């Protein structure tokens, strides 16, 4: 197996997909009802003023032409300026995207080891513990994020007062300057991810534990941690890794609820605001960047899964 060739092939595919998806995003903004003119010129603007603003924003040109010039600029690294406030889109991405990546990364760092432990434990043990954890996970996965957030706030911020209620980041700083402010957002996001990943792992661990080679390993006296880590986990992790990468990638752009509740300065809310204001360059830039992040995360997930698979073959 040539990992490099695999990565190269996947990268080329991702690039093509990125171009196609950016066009799809542009098409989506074009068919959204309305445009940014009302947001810029005001509801009460006259027809003449509207036409002026439309021309100034370049919205009077055909959509295909607008996309072509956007794509040409984007290739040079210039994603344009937002209609509202005229900030360069790249600047917004540079300040917000790292925060979102951090949030998603930390969530993964909490979720992955915990899910592995819980998945192995419940999958191998079965019985009462399994039923308890599985039911718990099921409930957790079903509760909406904002409810979990509210519960965590009520307990940790209001009642016990151990964590700040809102993630107030020092001006000019990053969330890393106030690690405490990250705790509640990460906990909230981890809860759902953990529940899903645990359920997935439990099933595949149980499957793997029932296979003949596992039986053979057991008969050879392999027990406990060694059995779990060397023989079961590599075979069981595949689907869970894929699921975790998917949710982590999606988290980067879709943690809007958590960003709102804790006032975390992520990219998801910027996207939401831009859509509401019909700020096409901002929507286009952010959405394309998020697609790129998602494709990169998926690629990483595939590489991980492939490496796991390779180990599995190696281990046999």
């Amino acid at each position: 197996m040539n990992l490099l060739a695999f990565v190269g092939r996947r990268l080329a595919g991702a690039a093509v997909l990125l171009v196609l998806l950016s066009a799809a995003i542009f098409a989506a903004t074009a068919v959204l009802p309305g445009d940014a003119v009302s947001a810029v010129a005001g509801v009460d603007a006259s027809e003449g003023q509207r036409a002026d603003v439309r021309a100034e924003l370049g919205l009077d040109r055909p959509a295909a032409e607008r996309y072509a010039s956007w794509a040409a600029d984007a290739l040079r690294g210039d994603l344009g300026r937002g209609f509202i406030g005229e900030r360069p889109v790249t600047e917004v991405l540079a300040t917000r995207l790292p925060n979102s990546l951090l949030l998603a990364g930390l969530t993964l760092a909490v979720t992955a080891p915990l899910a592995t432990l819980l998945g192995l434990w419940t999958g191998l043990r079965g019985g009462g513990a399994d039923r308890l954890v599985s039911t718990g996970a099921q409930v957790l996965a079903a509760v909406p994020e904002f409810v979990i957030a509210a519960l965590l706030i009520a307990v940790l911020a209001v009642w016990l007062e151990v964590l700040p209620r809102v993630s107030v980041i020092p001006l000019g700083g990053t969330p890393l300057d106030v690690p405490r402010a990250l705790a509640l957002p990460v906990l909230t996001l981890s809860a759902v991810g953990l529940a899903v990943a645990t359920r997935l792992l439990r099933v595949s661990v149980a499957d793997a534990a029932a296979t003949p080679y596992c039986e053979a390993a057991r008969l050879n006296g392999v027990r406990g941690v060694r059995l779990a880590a060397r023989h079961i986990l590599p075979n069981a992790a595949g689907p869970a890794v894929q699921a975790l990468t998917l949710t982590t990638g999606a988290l980067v752009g879709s943690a809007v609820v958590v960003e709102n509740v804790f006032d975390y300065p992520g990219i998801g809310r910027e996207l939401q605001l831009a859509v509401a204001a019909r700020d096409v360059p901002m929507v286009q830039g952010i959405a394309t960047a998020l697609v790129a992040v998602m494709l990169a995360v998926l690629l990483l997930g595939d590489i991980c899964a492939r490496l796991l698979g390779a180990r599995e073959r190696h281990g046999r």
Partner: protein
Amino acid sequence: MSRQFDRRTFLRRGAAGAAALAVGPGLLAACSTDEPGSGRKPGPGSSPRSGGTLRAAFVGGGASETLDFFNGPSALDLVRARAWHGTLGNLDPSGPDGVRYGVLKGIDLSADLSTYTLHVRPGVRFTDGSELTSADILHSLSVLAGKSMLPVYRLAAANFDLARAKADGDLKVVLPTLRPIADGRMILCQGNFLVVKDGTKTFRKGMPSCGPFRLTEFTAGQGSAFERFDDHYGNVPHLDGLELRSIADSTARAGALTSGEIDFAHDLSPVTARTLADDAKVRLVPTKSPYLVGLSFQMNMSVEPFDDPRVREAFKLAVDREAMVKTVFYGDAEIGNDLPSMGFPDYAESLPQRAHDPARARELLKEAGADGMKVRLTTGPETPGMVEMATLFVEDLKKAGVQASVRELPAGQLYADFATYAALPLAGSYQMPIPALSTYQMSTAGGSPSAFGWKESETDTLVARARAESDRSKAKQLGTQAQRTRWEEGNQVLPVFKPNLNAQAEGVSGIRDDLFEQFPGFSQASLA
């Protein structure tokens, strides 16, 4: 997420022109008003205590926030600029000219209402030590405001001949009007016209400014920090510093307030505000009249049966205003009388309050042959309470025999496709606090698309005459006459005025003294 009443909307609706409160030329000669607050200097023994950094949170506009308030759409952009830059003046219904001047000493206008002379207050200094002169005002007004895309700043160009504006010495700006108006002070001193130094092209930290605070830090979508400017004209702030934060979610703003992370939370949703009512550490400070937002429904007169005045009256009689105030705003709102701009000097307060009379509404609909009519009310969560009000209105209409239903659009969509909006038969809307006649001229006169088919050249003429009338009582009479027509035959149901539900930590004071309450200023604020 709670939606902001954004400044964009304020500016667009509000571009305050006029006020019927026209001021006689005799009064004008003597207009050298000092701010009432200007005598209050901080110092030992003075109450309230000076010092400290006040932290306030607003909805904000995310990464699109900008220091260039001439092109900045979010409410926070203007709040930040008010702390940072000097203003020409603010509307002050209790003031002698209806305004309170800032960097100006006063505004004179010629007897024929064709020329305004702005007198610069001497001795106003920028942070770089230079003195503010007429050139700075001219630059801010004719170059920066003149080029702005925001309608409120365009209003200057719509009323004044900016190309012919000129400086007369260092302390006078002469501003010719395009046609005679008596209420130009209301346009210039509505709080939005802030002054920066002559030649300013870009806005950045460290640029000279003459407001109460100087900017030390700014991160779009996150917040800004200020320190007191000790050489500020008029009154030096009590506070040492100021921090303005963007916290988009209403509950999060309230949470930050109760946990002591901020001292002032702007514009909470009614439900959030209610949860704070029992908190001893926090005080609710809703904005007072006239700084109230009108929530309304527009009936489209170019769509049947709203072309029939009886149907329009029936809809106005059908609405249970008190129930809306109680259920949607928990009593913390005022009952409206189907006219915008309650509390402003030119508001027709002498008209009787319209009653809730579903029986009469039913009769009127029957007379007009519209009983059992079908109508769909379109609205969206553009400001807290809008959708809830629409739901109640539809129930009221059903009781009057109308087959009404409500359609809620996602946030941001109601106004985004304006052509579609203006063609709706029945639509939700809201009005920012601006004087009555300017509201009319901005959004209703001349068959404007947002007038929903109202086209009454007689009323338009009345309003224009009221604006050009320098006799105060005559102007009031003309203005009231115009509003009576709107009240009787108009196509707007305006049942409720709601305040901005602000809240502050116990002990904070002086924010209200800065006027222009929907965009609070902190030059006179102090902490406990």
